[in-house]
């Protein structure tokens, strides 16, 4: 169990206070080093039970008074007093890049975010995002794609004890010796025990095991729309560079950008089609020259002192004559099934078989509505 010093306990005590004015008062006390006073004002028994509960749930707190508190956060004018974490705290010490964007994204955005995140994670750079739907999820997913499997000695987990007779006590899962290591940090806008949106539950669980979940809110806090813009400052402050994949003109992503610019962090934007709603924000900040244009992951890597050319992996594959015809039809567009049939002048059943085969060999992708594109 992590031991908390008096200063750290005082920080956790502050995080339990909801009233803003009260909190400001306590933070002033904290900065003046009057930890006893803070603890006196709080209910110490409740504080102890919170810490025990957190430990049971695998959550630990990194406070502003802790040795492992990320220094980068001190640049903020209101750094989080406590970071409630679940996962691998080592990740906070590594260099990180934030990949952020809209929830209402396009396929293009998802593709780009995944590819960027994957490239960074491969090179040992931690990918930070907000675990929202859309681009955020795609960024985390991209980092998960290059998760390393590490053999680890798992300390003997304590057997759950239940003295009552006849009560079913679930057996602990078999000891896993192989642990995933994912280079990603998710900064949540709610407590680490919650997941919003629900569609990200699976991803959040995976990050909790192999990456790191971070939140400045108590573990059981439900999400609130005011929390999200606020947590964006942590996303920006933890990173060395921020990549904006897709964003509309007024959005949470733009708030992250503002924070990053205030902190003097490199901001990169991915240009999009001028007709695309999802790219209006990114295109606008590119136009106003507020940021760098990222034409590929290599542009962002320069911020980390990595200079390398990232070429497309050339897939060497035997392509049949029919497959060649289909690839020619697809070129760079999204093409409908019917058009492929008419273009290739092949029987329908042949085309179905062909497309499924090509999809399996990774040559093409099937999109919703019977559309296909090159992958």
């Amino acid at each position, binding site marked *: 169990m992590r031991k908390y010093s008096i200063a750290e306990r005082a920080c956790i005590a502050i995080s339990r206070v909801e009233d803003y004015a009260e909190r400001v008062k306590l933070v002033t006390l904290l900065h003046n080093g009057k930890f006893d006073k803070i603890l006196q004002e709080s209910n110490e028994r409740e504080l102890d039970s919170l810490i025990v509960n957190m430990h049971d749930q695998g959550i630990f707190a990194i406070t502003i008074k802790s040795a492992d508190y990320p220094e980068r956060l001190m640049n903020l004018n209101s750094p989080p007093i406590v970071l409630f974490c679940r996962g691998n705290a080592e990740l906070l010490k590594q260099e990180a890049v934030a990949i952020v964007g809209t*929830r*209402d994204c396009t*396929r293009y955005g*998802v593709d780009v975010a995944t590819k960027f995140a994957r490239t960074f994670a491969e090179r040992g750079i931690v990918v930070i995002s907000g675990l929202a*739907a*859309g681009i955020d999820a795609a960024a985390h997913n991209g980092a998960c794609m290059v998760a390393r499997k590490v053999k680890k000695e798992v300390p003997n987990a304590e057997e759950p004890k239940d003295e009552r007779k006849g009560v079913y006590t679930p057996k602990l899962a078999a000891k896993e010796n192989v642990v995933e290591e994912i280079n990603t940090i998710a900064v949540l806008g709610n407590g680490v025990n919650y997941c919003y*949106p*629900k*569609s990200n539950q699976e991803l959040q669980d995976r990050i909790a095991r192999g990456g790191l979940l971070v939140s400045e809110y108590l573990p059981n806090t439900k999400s609130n729309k005011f929390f999200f813009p606020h947590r964006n400052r942590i996303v920006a402050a933890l990173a060395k560079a921020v990549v904006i994949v897709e964003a509309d003109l007024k959005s949470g992503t733009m708030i992250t950008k503002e924070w990053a610019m205030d902190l003097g962090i490199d901001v990169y934007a991915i240009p999009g089609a001028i007709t695309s709603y999802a790219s209006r924000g990114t295109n606008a900040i590119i136009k106003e020259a507020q940021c760098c244009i990222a034409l590929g992951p290599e542009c962002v890597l320069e911020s980390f002192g990595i200079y390398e050319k990232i070429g497309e992996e050339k897939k060497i594959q035997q392509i049949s004559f029919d497959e060649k015809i289909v690839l020619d039809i697809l070129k760079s567009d*999204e093409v*409908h*099934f*019917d058009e492929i*049939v008419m273009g290739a002048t092949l029987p*329908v*059943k042949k*085309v*179905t*078989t062909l*497309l*499924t*085969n090509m*999809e*399996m060999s*990774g040559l093409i*992708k*099937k*999109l*919703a*509505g*019977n*559309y296909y594109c090159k992958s």
Partner: protein
Amino acid sequence: MISKTKSFGINGIEGYMVDVEVDVLKGLPKQQTVGLPDASVKESHQRVESAIVNSGFAYPTGRIIVNLAPAGTRKEGALYDLPIAVGILATQGDIHSMEKVDEFAFVGELSLDGKIRRVNGVLPILLTASKNGIKKVIIPKDNEQEARYVHGVTVFVAESLRDVVDALNDHNKGKVVPVKKTNFKDVKNYTSYPLDMKYVKGQFIAKRAIEIAAAGGHNILLIGPPGSGKTMLAKCFPTILPDLTFEESLEVSKIHSIAGILDPARGIIVNRPFRTPHHTASLVAIAGGGKFSKPGEISLAHHGVLFLDEMPEYSRPALECLRQPLEDNTITIARANATVEYPAGFTLVASMNPCPCGNFGSRVVKCKCKFGEVQKYLAKLSGPLMDRIDLHIEVDNVTYDDLSSKGYGESSQDIKVRVDKARGVQLERFTDSTNFSNAKMTEVEVKQFCALDDECECVLRDAFEKLSLSARAYSRILRVARTIADLDDSPDITAEHVTEAIGYRELDRKMRG
């Protein structure tokens, strides 16, 4: 004096013999019916009294007891009016010969002026008569058409009670005439559908999937935005199904006869039924049952197509009740006072929008749904139900160019030839089995008839990994692959067939983009 006339009752879709016994006892005028009559049977005394008096006979004074034997089964409907009236007249000697009454069985509702009205369920009744060795049956004139296809029994039609009595007394017999029989082959040509596959523009993949569904009896789900032609495709589905055989036709007609929706001018059903209950339909409307147990939509769709438009909009219980029939081809409805079984061997054709706003994946209108709403919408259909749907395909908006193009596609007739052939292969395969289509194969049969070689196994394993298909797709894919092989006239399933079958499992993909 006691008289005894023969009539019929209906349980489920099968008829049974009912003896109508009438006795007139001394005592104050009173009418009683025993033998579990329902309201419409109890009321028949009032109709019968009026009809007898208005036909020019005397109504007996005294206590009239009517017994409907066997006494233990519920009797429903007004068809006992005629046998009761004949019985009463026989007890008082208006009909001279009891033997003559015994020769016939009677079915018919009486109107107050003595005319005989149409009743429901005549077709199953006549089939029961011929099975039970009854030689002559008198039925209402309006039900004449239904009698045309039942062999082994002479059916007479009558218009009024007076005519029936006259005929039984052997004078003026011209009014009660036997029905002329028709050969089923002659009516078969009446088969006609208002739609044809050739009018469906584009939609190649959907057409192909429908052909496979028709050939193997597979259930199919069409997913697409509004106006993409899902309904049109579904309506074309019966046009490529094989013609009803005589036995099938009789079975379908029987059900429709009991439900009272048989076309009086036709008398038998030659088109494959196509039922489209609205999505507000209740559980009982879909499954059948109710106070007067009636076949539901799934039974009316027997040997045909049940089309559920906008499937997620149906109530959950109504959808879940499809599960047993989809497996067993029958539905057993158990109520406190009776258990009935109706056949329900239909092919399910369902359609749905891909998301709440309907436009997910469309390139014409942008989808307004939030992330997750789409998944939620699809999750409305329960796993066990989706397990029973073999093919799911996307149908999409047809552009103006497609609509205005002149050329027609393949006609239903051409596709039907291939379907008929594939069905023939299956009939041969399942001669020893109770099952008659690839879709309804049991797991044992799947093992026996869908053996895969190494190459196919390899393709399947690849597909599960790379397309992240869910495990339950496995045996469905095999069944569909079997049908595709049958359409191809190939005795073995090849890798090509398996790959094509995988292509029709749209909803099994966990990641849809």
